[in-house]
């Protein structure tokens, strides 16, 4: 098609962008294949290496099921808290002005920069048995949610912030001048505009929480059926020379994340369609 375009009597300049576009897509496709697709395919293949029976066997182990339940529930709780608190933080950072705002704004991203194992260690020292603050939640399910909240903090904040910055204040002012109360303005004007950003932030936070390992391995205590999350269970499988079961559990985690991402995508699509 690129050569067609060049042969056609169209302006010569058109050929270059077309060829460029094809090259660009090729690069993107090649890159995604190498970095994402091949590893995921290999993982799935590995999990089914010994047949569907052993896949099912691996994921239906009571210990694996318990770990999965805990992981999914904790991730859902974390995603929900993030939706509310993340939006509130973004709101304060955009709409309020206070001393040290710049510092707070930069601090938000730190959980990304910190190696997660260090995050786990810091949380353990602060909220463990020897807590200088007198808070001891280490080795409980609360600790798992706590650690996950820490590592997923930036997602919703950073997704909502730019949308809030771009949001036209005149709409809100118009609504106010027509007598709408602040809560109604938020519910009817601001929130619908923020919702897509909140949802994409929540989806990312959830996916990240599902697979989190480093920050949890120290603080959760890893007790089967109680505080053992899927990633730690998978690590145990790998260490005890059972890579097939580890791959099978990982595929389940991926499928759950994929399902949530698709669900949120579908919801956003549905909303756009019905908003018109």
């Amino acid at each position: 098609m690129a050569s067609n375009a060049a042969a056609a009597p169209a302006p010569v300049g058109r050929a270059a962008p077309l060829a460029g576009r094809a090259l660009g897509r090729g690069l993107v496709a090649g890159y995604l294949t190498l970095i994402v697709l091949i590893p995921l395919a290999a993982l799935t293949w590995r999990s089914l290496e010994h047949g569907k029976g052993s896949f099912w066997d691996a994921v239906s182990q009571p210990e694996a099921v318990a770990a999965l339940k805990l992981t999914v529930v904790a991730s859902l709780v974390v995603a929900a808290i993030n939706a509310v608190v993340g939006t509130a933080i973004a709101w304060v950072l955009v709409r309020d002005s206070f001393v040290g705002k710049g510092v707070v704004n930069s601090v938000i991203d730190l959980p990304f920069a910190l190696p997660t194992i260090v995050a786990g260690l810091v949380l353990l020292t602060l909220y463990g048995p020897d807590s200088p603050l007198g808070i001891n939640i280490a080795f409980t399910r609360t600790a798992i949610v706590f650690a996950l909240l820490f590592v997923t903090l930036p997602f919703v904040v950073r997704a909502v912030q730019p949308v809030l910055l771009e949001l036209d204040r005149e709409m809100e002012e118009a609504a106010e001048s027509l007598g709408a109360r602040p809560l109604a303005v938020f519910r009817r004007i601001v929130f619908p505009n923020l919702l897509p950003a909140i949802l994409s932030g929540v989806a990312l936070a959830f996916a990240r929480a599902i697979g989190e390992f480093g920050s949890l391995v120290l603080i959760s205590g890893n007790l089967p059926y109680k505080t053992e999350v899927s990633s730690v269970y998978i690590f145990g499988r790998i260490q005890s020379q059972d890579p097939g079961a580890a791959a099978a559990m990982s595929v389940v985690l991926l499928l759950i994340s994929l399902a949530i991402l698709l669900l949120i995508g579908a919801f956003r699509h549905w909303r756009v369609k019905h908003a018109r």
Partner: protein
Amino acid sequence: MRVIWIGSAIATAAAATAALAIFGGAAASAAPQASNSVALVAYSTPKDAYTKIISAFNGTSAGKGVSFTQSYGASADQAAAVAAGQPADVVALSLKPDISTLVAKGIVAKNWQKTRYQAMVSDSIAVFIVRDGNPKHIHTWADLLKPGIQVITPNPISSGGARWDIMAAYGAQLKLGKTKKQAVAYLRKLFTHVPVLPTSAREALTTFASGKGDVLLDYENDAIFANKKGVHTDFVRPKQTILIENPVALTKSGAKKPAAKAFVKYLTTPAAQRIFAQNGYRPVVKKILKQTAYPNPKQLFTIAYVGGWAKVEKQFFGPKNGIVTKIISSLGK
């Protein structure tokens, strides 16, 4: 458009794969090919000892001009990395089954233990690390089962090293005159005193240091190491305990290198054994061990006493029906 898209995608992928192969190939072959360079892949705790042993080795006529690439990490991870192709001439791991993994892959020769000390270069024993001054008065295996005592151990399913501690507990019961059935019952009871299961020995130490638990099952060399690094701990050597033996093996590529062979031989010389002793390990050479201050527990036994690793791995830690595997997966129920 579509054809070009797919075509260029394949071309890009192919080019990238080729590039990867070139880089990968170069990395894989660079280290071991130089005959005067030895790739050492080891577990993490003896890092200090090996650094000193290597510089001492470089001072001998056999080790003059030999350079080393060193990699340290969790024993099972290191074995997996070498099995997956990480270049290695000498592997120093924490327990025999990790080397058996490499034998199964054809990376280490089957007869690797046919050496003077059965390929073991350092020893240790399983001990109880307790809080300063031993406030809970923990001295015996029975003390671990006293009401309210919390025992920290790495999960022996994910940490190969922790299997030494669990087999120490089991073998100690046999030494105390209990039957095998009673010894298994002891393990079951012991795990009811285990409030958390860190995945590795390092994490277990961190957990214990954070204030959790009354006693940590660990190795003598780790306790000495922690004290050297300023983490002050008291430790108790139980009367009945297991002799921990750390193996070293030449890989097939290492066996072709005089420098690698000379290095492995050097590890059991008095000079190297003394360095191990200074770093918390017990020498395997009896003459050197006698010169050290390590007290000998009255009823010391080896892994052979409880059946040997091949049998123990299957019977106690097998993925589904292992005795300990079952105890652990029933813990939180």
